[in-house]
Protein backbone atom coordinates (compact mmCIF):
# COMPACT_ATOMS: atom_id res chain seq x y z
CA UNK A 1 0.00 0.00 0.00
CA UNK A 2 1.28 3.45 -0.86
CA UNK A 3 -0.65 6.05 1.12
CA UNK A 4 -0.15 9.77 0.52
CA UNK A 5 -1.19 12.36 3.10
CA UNK A 6 -1.60 15.96 1.91
CA UNK A 7 -0.65 18.42 4.62
CA UNK A 8 -0.39 22.14 4.90
CA UNK A 9 1.34 24.33 7.44
CA UNK A 10 -0.83 26.90 9.24
CA UNK A 11 -0.52 29.33 12.13
CA UNK A 12 -1.46 27.83 15.49
CA UNK A 13 -5.18 27.98 16.25
CA UNK A 14 -4.46 30.27 19.24
CA UNK A 15 -2.77 32.86 16.99
CA UNK A 16 -3.94 36.46 17.19
CA UNK A 17 -4.40 37.35 13.55
CA UNK A 18 -4.02 40.88 12.26
CA UNK A 19 -3.74 42.75 8.98
CA UNK A 20 -1.42 45.73 8.44
CA UNK A 21 -2.09 48.75 6.23
CA UNK A 22 -0.60 47.05 3.17
CA UNK A 23 -2.96 44.15 3.69
CA UNK A 24 -0.28 41.71 4.87
CA UNK A 25 -1.57 39.06 7.23
CA UNK A 26 0.37 38.48 10.43
CA UNK A 27 0.05 35.86 13.17
CA UNK A 28 2.36 37.58 15.65
CA UNK A 29 4.91 35.31 17.26
CA UNK A 30 2.63 32.32 17.10
CA UNK A 31 4.36 29.20 15.73
CA UNK A 32 3.60 27.66 12.36
CA UNK A 33 2.34 24.13 12.85
CA UNK A 34 0.86 21.27 10.88
CA UNK A 35 -2.74 22.08 10.03
CA UNK A 36 -4.59 20.51 13.01
CA UNK A 37 -7.09 18.77 10.69
CA UNK A 38 -4.23 17.00 8.92
CA UNK A 39 -3.11 15.17 12.05
CA UNK A 40 -6.20 12.96 11.73
CA UNK A 41 -5.13 12.03 8.21
CA UNK A 42 -1.56 11.24 9.27
CA UNK A 43 -2.87 9.09 12.12
CA UNK A 44 -5.29 7.20 9.88
CA UNK A 45 -2.55 6.61 7.29
CA UNK A 46 -0.17 5.25 9.94
CA UNK A 47 -2.83 2.88 11.23
CA UNK A 48 -3.56 1.61 7.72
CA UNK A 49 0.14 1.10 7.04
CA UNK A 50 0.62 -0.78 10.30
CA UNK A 51 -2.30 -3.03 9.47
CA UNK A 52 -1.70 -3.58 5.76
CA UNK A 53 2.00 -2.81 5.28
CA UNK A 54 3.43 -0.29 2.84
CA UNK A 55 4.57 3.31 2.90
CA UNK A 56 3.15 6.61 4.07
CA UNK A 57 4.34 9.65 2.12
CA UNK A 58 3.42 13.14 3.27
CA UNK A 59 3.04 15.74 0.56
CA UNK A 60 2.87 19.50 0.85
CA UNK A 61 2.83 22.28 -1.66
CA UNK A 62 4.43 25.29 -0.04
CA UNK A 63 7.53 27.39 0.61
CA UNK A 64 10.32 26.45 3.08
CA UNK A 65 8.07 26.85 6.13
CA UNK A 66 5.89 24.02 4.81
CA UNK A 67 8.65 21.75 6.10
CA UNK A 68 7.17 22.26 9.59
CA UNK A 69 4.10 20.29 8.57
CA UNK A 70 6.17 17.54 6.94
CA UNK A 71 8.49 17.26 9.94
CA UNK A 72 5.58 16.91 12.31
CA UNK A 73 4.09 14.13 10.19
CA UNK A 74 7.45 12.31 10.04
CA UNK A 75 7.84 12.72 13.80
CA UNK A 76 4.44 11.02 14.16
CA UNK A 77 5.71 8.12 12.03
CA UNK A 78 5.38 8.89 8.31
CA UNK A 79 8.03 7.24 6.12
CA UNK A 80 8.65 9.73 3.34
CA UNK A 81 8.03 13.41 2.78
CA UNK A 82 7.89 15.46 -0.40
CA UNK A 83 7.57 19.20 -0.78
CA UNK A 84 6.56 20.76 -4.06
CA UNK A 85 7.33 24.41 -4.62
CA UNK A 86 8.13 27.06 -7.16
CA UNK A 87 7.71 30.80 -6.72
CA UNK A 88 5.12 30.57 -9.50
CA UNK A 89 2.85 28.61 -7.12
CA UNK A 90 2.35 31.59 -4.79
CA UNK A 91 -1.23 32.88 -5.00
CA UNK A 92 -2.70 29.53 -6.04
CA UNK A 93 -6.35 28.94 -5.23
CA UNK A 94 -7.70 25.41 -4.80
CA UNK A 95 -8.11 24.98 -8.58
CA UNK A 96 -4.36 25.48 -9.00
CA UNK A 97 -3.30 23.76 -5.75
CA UNK A 98 -5.27 20.64 -6.60
CA UNK A 99 -3.58 20.61 -10.02
CA UNK A 100 -0.10 20.68 -8.47
CA UNK A 101 -0.96 18.03 -5.88
CA UNK A 102 -2.51 15.80 -8.55
CA UNK A 103 0.61 16.11 -10.70
CA UNK A 104 2.78 15.10 -7.74
CA UNK A 105 0.56 12.11 -6.94
CA UNK A 106 0.64 11.07 -10.59
CA UNK A 107 4.42 11.29 -10.60
CA UNK A 108 4.57 8.89 -7.65
CA UNK A 109 2.66 6.50 -9.88
CA UNK A 110 1.80 3.73 -7.41
CA UNK A 111 -0.53 5.52 -4.99
CA UNK A 112 -3.46 3.52 -3.56
CA UNK A 113 -5.01 6.12 -1.29
CA UNK A 114 -4.67 9.88 -0.74
CA UNK A 115 -5.78 11.44 2.53
CA UNK A 116 -6.64 15.09 3.04
CA UNK A 117 -7.87 16.97 6.08
CA UNK A 118 -11.35 18.42 6.22
CA UNK A 119 -10.01 21.91 5.82
CA UNK A 120 -6.93 24.03 6.39
CA UNK A 121 -7.49 26.39 9.32
CA UNK A 122 -6.07 29.38 7.41
CA UNK A 123 -8.19 29.83 4.28
CA UNK A 124 -10.56 27.05 5.41
CA UNK A 125 -12.00 26.39 1.98
CA UNK A 126 -12.76 22.66 2.48
CA UNK A 127 -12.14 22.33 -1.24
CA UNK A 128 -8.73 20.81 -1.85
CA UNK A 129 -9.63 17.17 -1.13
CA UNK A 130 -12.61 16.93 -3.45
CA UNK A 131 -10.84 19.08 -6.06
CA UNK A 132 -7.86 16.72 -5.97
CA UNK A 133 -10.13 13.68 -6.33
CA UNK A 134 -11.81 15.31 -9.32
CA UNK A 135 -8.44 16.10 -10.91
CA UNK A 136 -7.28 12.51 -10.46
CA UNK A 137 -10.63 11.10 -11.56
CA UNK A 138 -10.78 9.09 -8.31
CA UNK A 139 -13.72 8.68 -5.91
CA UNK A 140 -14.09 11.51 -3.40
CA UNK A 141 -14.89 10.39 0.15
CA UNK A 142 -14.93 13.59 2.18
CA UNK A 143 -15.78 14.12 5.90
CA UNK A 144 -15.05 10.49 6.74
CA UNK A 145 -15.61 9.95 10.47
CA UNK A 146 -15.18 6.18 10.51
CA UNK A 147 -13.09 3.96 8.28
CA UNK A 148 -15.17 0.79 8.33
CA UNK A 149 -12.96 -1.40 6.16
CA UNK A 150 -10.12 -1.36 3.70
CA UNK A 151 -10.16 -4.57 1.69
CA UNK A 152 -6.82 -5.07 -0.03
CA UNK A 153 -7.93 -8.16 -1.97
CA UNK A 154 -10.96 -6.42 -3.42
CA UNK A 155 -9.10 -3.10 -3.55
CA UNK A 156 -12.02 -1.27 -1.96
CA UNK A 157 -12.64 1.01 0.96
CA UNK A 158 -15.77 1.56 3.05
CA UNK A 159 -16.27 4.63 5.22
CA UNK A 160 -18.96 6.45 7.14
CA UNK A 161 -19.10 10.07 6.11
CA UNK A 162 -20.92 13.02 7.57
CA UNK A 163 -23.99 14.65 6.11
CA UNK A 164 -26.22 17.07 8.00
CA UNK A 165 -28.84 14.39 8.67
CA UNK A 166 -26.52 11.60 9.74
CA UNK A 167 -23.79 9.31 8.47
CA UNK A 168 -23.77 7.91 4.97
CA UNK A 169 -22.00 4.56 4.53
CA UNK A 170 -20.17 4.48 1.20
CA UNK A 171 -17.97 2.00 -0.57
CA UNK A 172 -15.50 2.87 -3.32
CA UNK A 173 -12.76 1.17 -5.31
CA UNK A 174 -9.11 2.13 -4.78
CA UNK A 175 -7.39 4.36 -5.59
CA UNK A 176 -9.50 6.99 -3.88
CA UNK A 177 -9.19 10.29 -2.03
CA UNK A 178 -10.31 10.20 1.58
CA UNK A 179 -11.08 13.37 3.51
CA UNK A 180 -10.88 12.84 7.26
CA UNK A 181 -12.58 14.70 10.06
CA UNK A 182 -12.28 14.83 13.81
CA UNK A 183 -13.74 11.73 15.40
CA UNK A 184 -12.12 9.27 12.99
CA UNK A 185 -9.26 8.66 15.44
CA UNK A 186 -7.21 10.22 18.20
CA UNK A 187 -3.93 11.43 16.65
CA UNK A 188 -0.80 10.19 18.45
CA UNK A 189 1.85 12.50 19.82
CA UNK A 190 5.22 12.75 18.15
CA UNK A 191 7.83 10.40 19.64
CA UNK A 192 11.46 11.14 20.56
CA UNK A 193 12.66 8.69 17.93
CA UNK A 194 10.31 10.28 15.44
CA UNK A 195 11.50 13.79 16.20
CA UNK A 196 15.10 12.65 15.74
CA UNK A 197 14.27 10.97 12.48
CA UNK A 198 12.44 14.08 11.30
CA UNK A 199 15.44 16.24 12.11
CA UNK A 200 17.83 14.02 10.17
CA UNK A 201 15.68 13.20 7.18
CA UNK A 202 16.13 14.60 3.68
CA UNK A 203 13.13 16.46 2.35
CA UNK A 204 13.21 16.31 -1.44
CA UNK A 205 11.90 19.38 -3.20
CA UNK A 206 10.05 18.77 -6.43
CA UNK A 207 9.86 21.60 -8.93
CA UNK A 208 7.10 22.15 -11.45
CA UNK A 209 9.40 20.58 -14.06
CA UNK A 210 9.89 17.51 -11.86
CA UNK A 211 6.16 16.86 -11.73
CA UNK A 212 5.58 17.87 -15.35
CA UNK A 213 3.24 20.72 -14.42
CA UNK A 214 2.21 23.38 -16.91
CA UNK A 215 3.21 26.82 -15.54
CA UNK A 216 0.04 28.34 -16.97
CA UNK A 217 -2.01 26.19 -14.61
CA UNK A 218 -0.43 27.29 -11.31
CA UNK A 219 -0.40 30.51 -9.32
CA UNK A 220 -2.77 33.36 -10.17
CA UNK A 221 -2.96 32.53 -13.88
CA UNK A 222 -4.02 28.99 -13.05
CA UNK A 223 -6.53 30.11 -10.44
CA UNK A 224 -10.15 31.13 -10.69
CA UNK A 225 -10.36 33.08 -7.44
CA UNK A 226 -8.57 36.31 -6.42
CA UNK A 227 -8.67 37.81 -2.94
CA UNK A 228 -8.08 41.54 -3.32
CA UNK A 229 -8.66 42.40 0.31
CA UNK A 230 -8.29 40.85 3.74
CA UNK A 231 -9.48 42.72 6.81
CA UNK A 232 -10.29 42.38 10.47
CA UNK A 233 -13.98 41.95 11.26
CA UNK A 234 -15.67 44.55 13.43
CA UNK A 235 -15.31 43.47 17.06
CA UNK A 236 -18.42 42.27 18.84
CA UNK A 237 -19.33 45.05 21.15
CA UNK A 238 -17.93 45.17 24.68
CA UNK A 239 -18.78 43.04 27.65
CA UNK A 240 -21.92 41.12 28.40
CA UNK A 241 -24.69 42.64 30.44
CA UNK A 242 -24.53 40.53 33.58
CA UNK A 243 -28.01 39.92 34.93
CA UNK A 244 -28.08 40.26 38.70
CA UNK A 245 -31.03 39.85 41.06
CA UNK A 246 -31.91 38.47 44.48
CA UNK A 247 -32.67 34.97 43.29
CA UNK A 248 -31.74 32.84 40.32
CA UNK A 249 -35.45 32.63 39.40
CA UNK A 250 -35.61 36.41 39.19
CA UNK A 251 -32.44 36.53 37.10
CA UNK A 252 -33.92 33.93 34.78
CA UNK A 253 -37.10 35.99 34.35
CA UNK A 254 -35.12 39.14 33.55
CA UNK A 255 -32.99 37.25 31.05
CA UNK A 256 -36.05 35.82 29.34
CA UNK A 257 -37.46 39.33 29.00
CA UNK A 258 -34.20 40.53 27.44
CA UNK A 259 -34.19 37.62 24.99
CA UNK A 260 -37.82 38.19 24.05
CA UNK A 261 -37.06 41.88 23.47
CA UNK A 262 -34.31 40.87 21.02
CA UNK A 263 -36.98 39.03 19.01
CA UNK A 264 -34.77 36.02 18.39
CA UNK A 265 -37.24 33.44 19.68
Amino acid at each position, binding site marked *: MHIVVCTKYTPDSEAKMSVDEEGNISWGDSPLIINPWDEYSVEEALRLRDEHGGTVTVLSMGPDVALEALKHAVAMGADEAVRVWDEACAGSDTLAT*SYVLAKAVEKMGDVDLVLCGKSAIDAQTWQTGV*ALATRLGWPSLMYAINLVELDREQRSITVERLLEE*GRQVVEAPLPAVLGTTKGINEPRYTSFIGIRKAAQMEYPLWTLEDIGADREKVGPQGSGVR*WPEVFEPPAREAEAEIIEAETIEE*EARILVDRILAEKVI
Partner: protein
Amino acid sequence: MSRDILVWVEQFEREAPAASWEAVGVARQIADEGGGGVIACVLGGDGLADLAEEAVAYGADRVLWAADPTLADFRVEPYTTVLQQLVREHEPGTILMAATFRGREIGPALAVRLETGCVADCTELHFQNGELMATRPIYAGKLLSRCVIPERRPQVFTTRVRAFPKPEPDVSRQGEIAELLPSVTEDEIAVKVTGFKDTAGGVSLADAGVIVSGGRGVAGPDGYEPLRELAQLLNGAVGASRAAVDAGWIPYEHQVGQTGKTVSPDLYIACGISGAIQHLAGMRTSTVIVAVNKDPEAPIFKIADYGIVADLFDAVPALRDALKEKLE
Protein backbone atom coordinates in the same frame (compact mmCIF):
# COMPACT_ATOMS: atom_id res chain seq x y z
CA MET B 1 -22.39 32.46 -21.21
CA SER B 2 -25.64 34.07 -20.12
CA ARG B 3 -26.35 36.11 -17.03
CA ASP B 4 -28.51 33.31 -15.69
CA ILE B 5 -27.83 31.94 -12.24
CA LEU B 6 -28.02 28.24 -11.62
CA VAL B 7 -28.84 27.20 -8.06
CA TRP B 8 -28.57 23.62 -6.96
CA VAL B 9 -31.30 22.94 -4.38
CA GLU B 10 -30.34 19.90 -2.36
CA GLN B 11 -32.84 17.55 -0.76
CA PHE B 12 -33.02 14.76 1.77
CA GLU B 13 -36.14 12.60 1.76
CA ARG B 14 -37.73 15.09 -0.66
CA GLU B 15 -37.22 18.05 1.61
CA ALA B 16 -34.79 20.87 1.00
CA PRO B 17 -32.89 22.40 3.91
CA ALA B 18 -33.51 26.08 4.66
CA ALA B 19 -29.94 26.72 3.48
CA SER B 20 -30.91 25.87 -0.11
CA TRP B 21 -33.76 28.39 -0.02
CA GLU B 22 -31.34 30.94 1.36
CA ALA B 23 -29.17 30.29 -1.71
CA VAL B 24 -32.20 30.70 -3.99
CA GLY B 25 -32.89 34.01 -2.23
CA VAL B 26 -29.34 35.19 -2.93
CA ALA B 27 -29.68 34.15 -6.58
CA ARG B 28 -32.97 36.05 -6.88
CA GLN B 29 -31.35 39.17 -5.52
CA ILE B 30 -28.37 38.92 -7.88
CA ALA B 31 -30.69 38.36 -10.82
CA ASP B 32 -32.88 41.33 -9.91
CA GLU B 33 -29.85 43.54 -9.68
CA GLY B 34 -27.65 42.22 -12.48
CA GLY B 35 -30.18 40.79 -14.92
CA GLY B 36 -30.67 37.18 -15.98
CA GLY B 37 -32.97 34.52 -14.61
CA VAL B 38 -32.78 32.09 -11.72
CA ILE B 39 -32.67 28.45 -12.76
CA ALA B 40 -33.05 26.02 -9.87
CA CYS B 41 -32.04 22.41 -10.21
CA VAL B 42 -33.38 19.60 -8.04
CA LEU B 43 -31.93 16.09 -8.17
CA GLY B 44 -33.13 12.91 -6.50
CA GLY B 45 -34.65 9.46 -6.79
CA ASP B 46 -38.33 10.30 -7.24
CA GLY B 47 -41.19 12.51 -6.12
CA LEU B 48 -39.59 15.88 -6.76
CA ALA B 49 -42.62 17.69 -8.20
CA ASP B 50 -43.57 19.42 -4.92
CA LEU B 51 -40.02 20.54 -4.37
CA ALA B 52 -39.88 22.01 -7.88
CA GLU B 53 -42.99 24.08 -7.12
CA GLU B 54 -41.52 25.19 -3.84
CA ALA B 55 -38.41 26.38 -5.66
CA VAL B 56 -40.60 28.65 -7.79
CA ALA B 57 -42.29 30.02 -4.68
CA TYR B 58 -38.88 30.83 -3.19
CA GLY B 59 -37.83 32.77 -6.28
CA ALA B 60 -36.79 30.53 -9.19
CA ASP B 61 -37.87 31.45 -12.71
CA ARG B 62 -37.28 27.96 -14.02
CA VAL B 63 -36.85 24.66 -12.25
CA LEU B 64 -35.19 21.70 -13.89
CA TRP B 65 -35.57 18.45 -12.02
CA ALA B 66 -34.15 15.04 -12.65
CA ALA B 67 -35.41 11.92 -10.91
CA ASP B 68 -33.37 8.81 -11.46
CA PRO B 69 -32.26 5.81 -9.37
CA THR B 70 -28.63 6.91 -9.82
CA LEU B 71 -29.53 10.18 -8.05
CA ALA B 72 -31.52 8.67 -5.19
CA ASP B 73 -28.64 8.96 -2.74
CA PHE B 74 -26.30 11.92 -2.70
CA ARG B 75 -23.08 11.09 -4.54
CA VAL B 76 -20.52 13.47 -5.97
CA GLU B 77 -20.00 11.77 -9.33
CA PRO B 78 -23.54 11.57 -10.74
CA TYR B 79 -24.63 14.86 -9.18
CA THR B 80 -21.66 16.69 -10.66
CA THR B 81 -22.19 15.04 -14.03
CA VAL B 82 -25.83 16.14 -14.23
CA LEU B 83 -25.00 19.67 -13.10
CA GLN B 84 -22.23 19.81 -15.71
CA GLN B 85 -24.74 18.69 -18.33
CA LEU B 86 -27.05 21.51 -17.22
CA VAL B 87 -24.23 24.03 -17.45
CA ARG B 88 -23.49 22.91 -21.01
CA GLU B 89 -27.13 23.26 -22.05
CA HIS B 90 -28.00 26.50 -20.26
CA GLU B 91 -24.64 28.28 -19.96
CA PRO B 92 -25.29 30.08 -16.66
CA GLY B 93 -22.73 32.73 -15.76
CA THR B 94 -23.00 32.02 -12.04
CA ILE B 95 -23.64 28.89 -10.00
CA LEU B 96 -24.77 28.99 -6.36
CA MET B 97 -25.40 26.40 -3.71
CA ALA B 98 -25.51 26.17 0.08
CA ALA B 99 -22.23 25.48 1.89
CA THR B 100 -23.58 22.30 3.49
CA PHE B 101 -21.54 19.09 3.54
CA ARG B 102 -23.04 18.29 0.15
CA GLY B 103 -22.59 21.73 -1.35
CA ARG B 104 -19.02 22.03 -0.12
CA GLU B 105 -18.25 18.86 -2.05
CA ILE B 106 -20.23 19.55 -5.23
CA GLY B 107 -19.10 23.18 -5.64
CA PRO B 108 -15.35 22.48 -5.96
CA ALA B 109 -15.91 19.23 -7.92
CA LEU B 110 -17.98 21.11 -10.47
CA ALA B 111 -15.52 24.00 -10.55
CA VAL B 112 -12.59 21.69 -11.31
CA ARG B 113 -14.52 19.96 -14.09
CA LEU B 114 -15.32 23.37 -15.58
CA GLU B 115 -11.77 24.68 -14.90
CA THR B 116 -13.21 27.61 -13.02
CA GLY B 117 -13.09 29.20 -9.57
CA CYS B 118 -15.19 28.35 -6.54
CA VAL B 119 -15.49 30.70 -3.56
CA ALA B 120 -16.56 28.67 -0.56
CA ASP B 121 -18.65 29.70 2.39
CA CYS B 122 -19.64 33.25 1.43
CA THR B 123 -21.30 35.38 4.09
CA GLU B 124 -21.93 38.32 1.77
CA LEU B 125 -22.26 38.67 -1.98
CA HIS B 126 -22.70 41.97 -3.77
CA PHE B 127 -21.90 43.73 -7.03
CA GLN B 128 -18.79 45.85 -7.16
CA ASN B 129 -17.87 47.43 -10.51
CA GLY B 130 -20.17 44.97 -12.23
CA GLU B 131 -18.52 41.94 -10.64
CA LEU B 132 -19.80 39.72 -7.88
CA MET B 133 -17.68 40.33 -4.81
CA ALA B 134 -17.90 37.77 -2.03
CA THR B 135 -16.92 38.08 1.61
CA ARG B 136 -15.85 34.99 3.50
CA PRO B 137 -14.38 34.28 6.92
CA ILE B 138 -10.82 32.95 7.14
CA TYR B 139 -8.62 31.96 10.08
CA ALA B 140 -11.65 30.77 12.01
CA GLY B 141 -13.44 34.06 11.50
CA LYS B 142 -10.60 36.09 13.00
CA LEU B 143 -10.25 37.74 9.58
CA LEU B 144 -12.50 38.31 6.59
CA SER B 145 -11.49 38.06 2.95
CA ARG B 146 -13.07 39.59 -0.14
CA CYS B 147 -13.01 37.20 -3.07
CA VAL B 148 -13.78 37.62 -6.74
CA ILE B 149 -13.61 35.40 -9.82
CA PRO B 150 -12.45 37.88 -12.44
CA GLU B 151 -12.19 35.90 -15.64
CA ARG B 152 -13.50 32.40 -15.63
CA ARG B 153 -17.16 31.55 -16.18
CA PRO B 154 -19.30 30.18 -14.89
CA GLN B 155 -18.25 31.31 -11.43
CA VAL B 156 -19.19 29.15 -8.44
CA PHE B 157 -20.09 30.35 -4.94
CA THR B 158 -21.28 28.41 -1.92
CA THR B 159 -23.28 30.38 0.64
CA ARG B 160 -22.76 29.93 4.35
CA VAL B 161 -25.73 28.37 6.12
CA ARG B 162 -27.85 31.02 7.90
CA ALA B 163 -25.69 33.89 6.67
CA PHE B 164 -28.44 35.05 4.30
CA PRO B 165 -32.15 35.43 5.04
CA LYS B 166 -34.51 32.69 3.97
CA PRO B 167 -36.95 34.34 1.55
CA GLU B 168 -40.68 34.32 2.21
CA PRO B 169 -42.23 31.79 -0.19
CA ASP B 170 -44.79 33.28 -2.56
CA VAL B 171 -47.13 30.54 -3.81
CA SER B 172 -48.62 32.84 -6.44
CA ARG B 173 -45.28 33.16 -8.26
CA GLN B 174 -45.23 31.65 -11.73
CA GLY B 175 -42.33 29.67 -13.11
CA GLU B 176 -41.52 27.10 -15.71
CA ILE B 177 -40.93 23.57 -14.47
CA ALA B 178 -39.30 21.00 -16.70
CA GLU B 179 -38.03 17.48 -16.32
CA LEU B 180 -34.50 16.71 -17.25
CA LEU B 181 -33.16 13.40 -18.49
CA PRO B 182 -29.91 12.70 -16.71
CA SER B 183 -27.05 11.32 -18.77
CA VAL B 184 -25.62 8.94 -16.16
CA THR B 185 -25.79 5.21 -15.77
CA GLU B 186 -25.03 3.23 -12.63
CA ASP B 187 -22.07 1.32 -14.08
CA GLU B 188 -20.21 4.62 -14.64
CA ILE B 189 -20.39 5.46 -10.93
CA ALA B 190 -17.60 4.10 -8.72
CA VAL B 191 -19.04 5.01 -5.31
CA LYS B 192 -21.87 2.91 -3.86
CA VAL B 193 -24.00 3.97 -0.91
CA THR B 194 -24.56 0.95 1.31
CA GLY B 195 -26.23 2.44 4.35
CA PHE B 196 -27.31 5.45 6.36
CA LYS B 197 -27.20 6.08 10.08
CA ASP B 198 -29.33 8.78 11.63
CA THR B 199 -27.09 10.33 14.25
CA ALA B 200 -28.21 13.94 14.13
CA GLY B 201 -31.06 13.24 16.56
CA GLY B 202 -33.76 15.82 15.85
CA VAL B 203 -32.93 19.38 14.89
CA SER B 204 -29.58 19.66 13.10
CA LEU B 205 -27.08 22.12 14.54
CA ALA B 206 -26.50 23.88 11.25
CA ASP B 207 -30.16 24.78 10.71
CA ALA B 208 -31.07 25.45 14.31
CA GLY B 209 -32.38 28.89 15.20
CA VAL B 210 -31.54 28.29 18.84
CA ILE B 211 -28.61 26.31 20.22
CA VAL B 212 -28.15 25.42 23.87
CA SER B 213 -24.55 24.37 24.29
CA GLY B 214 -22.79 22.67 27.17
CA GLY B 215 -19.12 22.38 28.03
CA ARG B 216 -17.01 20.82 30.75
CA GLY B 217 -19.32 22.46 33.25
CA VAL B 218 -22.10 19.95 32.54
CA ALA B 219 -19.83 17.45 34.31
CA GLY B 220 -21.01 14.27 32.56
CA PRO B 221 -23.43 12.82 29.99
CA ASP B 222 -26.42 13.28 32.31
CA GLY B 223 -25.56 16.95 32.71
CA TYR B 224 -26.95 17.51 29.21
CA GLU B 225 -30.50 16.63 30.32
CA PRO B 226 -31.48 20.13 31.54
CA LEU B 227 -29.90 21.60 28.39
CA ARG B 228 -31.91 19.23 26.21
CA GLU B 229 -35.12 20.24 27.98
CA LEU B 230 -34.39 23.92 27.41
CA ALA B 231 -33.47 23.29 23.78
CA GLN B 232 -36.65 21.34 23.21
CA LEU B 233 -38.76 24.13 24.65
CA LEU B 234 -37.14 26.53 22.17
CA ASN B 235 -37.28 24.05 19.29
CA GLY B 236 -33.51 24.25 19.23
CA ALA B 237 -30.54 21.93 19.09
CA VAL B 238 -27.92 20.92 21.64
CA GLY B 239 -24.30 21.88 21.09
CA ALA B 240 -21.10 21.11 22.96
CA SER B 241 -17.54 22.23 23.49
CA ARG B 242 -14.63 20.05 22.51
CA ALA B 243 -13.84 19.32 26.14
CA ALA B 244 -17.25 17.68 26.55
CA VAL B 245 -16.94 15.77 23.27
CA ASP B 246 -13.43 14.57 24.10
CA ALA B 247 -14.67 13.39 27.48
CA GLY B 248 -17.17 11.22 25.61
CA TRP B 249 -20.25 12.86 27.11
CA ILE B 250 -21.85 13.67 23.75
CA PRO B 251 -21.08 12.63 20.11
CA TYR B 252 -18.78 14.68 17.89
CA GLU B 253 -21.71 15.73 15.67
CA HIS B 254 -22.64 18.19 18.43
CA GLN B 255 -19.26 19.91 18.69
CA VAL B 256 -19.18 23.62 17.95
CA GLY B 257 -15.93 25.38 17.13
CA GLN B 258 -12.85 25.37 15.03
CA THR B 259 -12.67 21.58 14.80
CA GLY B 260 -16.43 21.17 15.06
CA LYS B 261 -19.33 22.92 13.38
CA THR B 262 -19.58 26.58 12.61
CA VAL B 263 -23.02 27.75 13.61
CA SER B 264 -24.83 31.03 13.43
CA PRO B 265 -28.12 30.72 15.28
CA ASP B 266 -30.36 33.59 16.35
CA LEU B 267 -29.72 32.61 19.95
CA TYR B 268 -26.73 30.73 21.37
CA ILE B 269 -26.83 29.79 25.05
CA ALA B 270 -23.39 28.69 26.30
CA CYS B 271 -23.57 26.76 29.58
CA GLY B 272 -20.42 25.83 31.45
CA ILE B 273 -18.24 26.81 28.52
CA SER B 274 -15.18 28.95 29.25
CA GLY B 275 -15.04 30.56 25.81
CA ALA B 276 -11.71 29.38 24.38
CA ILE B 277 -10.79 31.03 21.10
CA GLN B 278 -11.36 27.74 19.22
CA HIS B 279 -14.88 27.52 20.60
CA LEU B 280 -15.65 31.15 19.76
CA ALA B 281 -14.49 30.43 16.19
CA GLY B 282 -17.59 28.30 15.71
CA MET B 283 -20.27 30.55 17.19
CA ARG B 284 -19.12 34.17 17.22
CA THR B 285 -21.55 35.18 14.46
CA SER B 286 -24.63 34.14 16.44
CA THR B 287 -27.12 36.99 16.67
CA VAL B 288 -27.55 36.93 20.44
CA ILE B 289 -25.18 35.10 22.78
CA VAL B 290 -26.08 34.21 26.35
CA ALA B 291 -23.50 32.78 28.76
CA VAL B 292 -24.12 30.88 31.96
CA ASN B 293 -20.93 30.30 33.94
CA LYS B 294 -19.89 30.06 37.59
CA ASP B 295 -16.75 32.04 36.93
CA PRO B 296 -17.32 35.80 36.40
CA GLU B 297 -13.89 36.01 34.73
CA ALA B 298 -14.69 33.39 32.06
CA PRO B 299 -13.75 34.78 28.62
CA ILE B 300 -17.14 33.79 27.22
CA PHE B 301 -18.55 36.92 28.92
CA LYS B 302 -16.35 39.02 26.61
CA ILE B 303 -18.38 38.14 23.54
CA ALA B 304 -21.74 37.34 25.14
CA ASP B 305 -24.58 39.84 25.06
CA TYR B 306 -26.08 38.65 28.33
CA GLY B 307 -24.62 36.66 31.16
CA ILE B 308 -25.66 34.94 34.35
CA VAL B 309 -22.95 34.13 36.86
CA ALA B 310 -24.29 30.98 38.51
CA ASP B 311 -24.20 27.24 38.63
CA LEU B 312 -25.72 26.01 35.40
CA PHE B 313 -27.67 23.33 37.26
CA ASP B 314 -29.57 26.14 39.01
CA ALA B 315 -29.69 28.60 36.13
CA VAL B 316 -30.78 26.33 33.26
CA PRO B 317 -33.87 24.87 35.02
CA ALA B 318 -34.76 28.39 36.21
CA LEU B 319 -34.47 29.62 32.65
CA ARG B 320 -36.68 26.80 31.45
CA ASP B 321 -39.36 27.62 34.03
CA ALA B 322 -39.23 31.33 33.32
CA LEU B 323 -39.59 30.65 29.60
CA LYS B 324 -42.51 28.29 30.10
CA GLU B 325 -44.23 30.95 32.15
CA LYS B 326 -43.75 33.60 29.44
CA LEU B 327 -44.62 31.41 26.50
CA GLU B 328 -47.91 30.32 28.01
